[in-house]
């Protein structure tokens, strides 16, 4: 009988190979959505995509309305403040996340935040474990020379 933290790998007859799979990638946002990423970096603005047909404002923005397949061509500013809708509190550190992603020190809160003017929820994080659903939050922007047109240009959200 063995458990996952006591695999019998010290037994010399059970040979195992340990590898690391690396998957290099480049991801292109597309011309339309590039505008929203550049707005984060240059203007500290959060843009959503508004479907003309159903008035839904997608944040993160996208160029097609998933429901009616209509092409979306309008970006509108949303937030920056929003309301916390769903939460989970993170109490552990994960080795690989820490190595490859930016991470807050635990405990911190992962939250789905509905920004003012948006129809959908944005995933982000909030320091600490005292956040409740319905709390009003605002973005904490990364310094001007640290922003690189990524969602991490908002370091985290914090209570208003």
């Amino acid at each position: 009988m063995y458990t996952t933290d006591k695999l019998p790998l010290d037994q010399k007859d059970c040979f195992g190979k340990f590898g690391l799979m690396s998957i290099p990638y480049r991801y292109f946002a597309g011309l339309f959505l590039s505008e929203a990423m550049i707005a984060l970096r240059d203007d500290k603005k959060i843009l959503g995509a508004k479907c003309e047909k159903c008035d839904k404002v997608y944040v993160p923005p996208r160029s097609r309305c998933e429901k009616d397949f209509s092409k979306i061509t309008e970006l509108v500013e949303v937030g920056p403040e929003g309301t916390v809708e769903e939460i989970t509190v993170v109490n552990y550190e994960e080795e690989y996340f820490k190595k490859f992603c930016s991470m807050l020190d635990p405990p911190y809160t992962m939250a789905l935040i509905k920004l003012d003017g948006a129809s959908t929820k944005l995933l982000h994080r909030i320091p600490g474990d005292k956040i409740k659903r319905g709390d009003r939050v605002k973005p904490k922007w990364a310094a001007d020379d640290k922003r690189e047109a990524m969602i991490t240009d908002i370091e985290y959200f914090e209570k208003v």
Partner: protein
Amino acid sequence: MTKRMRNVAISGIGQTRHRGHREDVNMVELVSEAVEAVLEDSKMDLKDIDCIVHGNMELFEGVHQPDMWHVLGDGAYGKAGFRITTGGTTGATIVCSADHLVASGMYDSVLAIGWEKQEEGMTTTGITNMADPLWEREIQTGAITGTHGVMMMNKFGEPANQAAAEFRVLMADNARKNYKAHLRIEITRKDVLASRVLAWPLRLLHMCPESNGACAILFVSEKLAKKLPQKPVWMHDHVTVHRQETFDLVNMGDLDTHGEAARVLYARNGILDPMKQVGVFEMYDPQSWWALDWLGKFLMLENGEQIEMILNGDFAIDGKFPVNPSGGVVSSNPIGATAIIRVAEAALQIRGNAGEHQVPKDVNLAMSTGFGGTFWTVLHLLGAEKPDK
């Protein structure tokens, strides 16, 4: 003839223009282009499509479950859906699946989508993972191999070398007529033979490119096909022949899955002389040396007759037996889309509206193939007439 619950028709075809660079769109937007094109071609309302079958290469863009993500832009919202990923044959297997789903009576309309945005990933990362971690992964080289070329050179000598190069030139000539093709280059046999050696006798110009592109085909029931404006192209049959995954069991030099697929397909459909009975052949040709060998396998030519046929121009658009009027895989290779493009191009030839690369004759039957990273074959037979006629 295989048993069909009911007939299945292709009533819409949509493709992107396949390109080496598509930084202007993201993956979802690329797929949207093909979906938009197939809706335009078929005049089908998206809300009347029952099911989406979606596929690309495992691990290539580093995205987990792209079929789910792409609901953002492929029209699958609220519909049934499947993801298919079978290596290089992905696009061909998507077609098998869509054919089954309509033939069985389960759905009246199925949209099959194959796509790849190869500039976003690292092809070799995906491919190396097919190899056994203990015995093969550290040694194999991904997609590039000269084994078929060596075999053909050993068997036929210099004429094989000339024919492989000449077939590459023919593909370039055809691709220049197909505005959706990626490499529309003007080359001579001399250019091919002077290009850099990758793995002798395989040279750079023999090898397919890495492309970005998507292709979507609408499969419908006979009843629905009658209501749609495009001339229906009927699914007749398809055969998949697998080999074991590990290299030691695959006969790399003399691949036997193609010949076996052809034997089964011909026997089931009363094809005694494929070059007489089939009007056009869209063959998955990842490199021209493979093409040279595989033409022989699919067409049952046992003594390398394809070499002379290539040098005679018999496989040209206006030749005796047109092969890859589209320019083939050596001209465009968005891998997850590549094999479904073969089916789309074969269907366009039957419809008679392929454009500048249309073969100048009525095509009654067309064949197309897919070839997988794990050495297997999918072979399709399509027809202008219903299979039970």
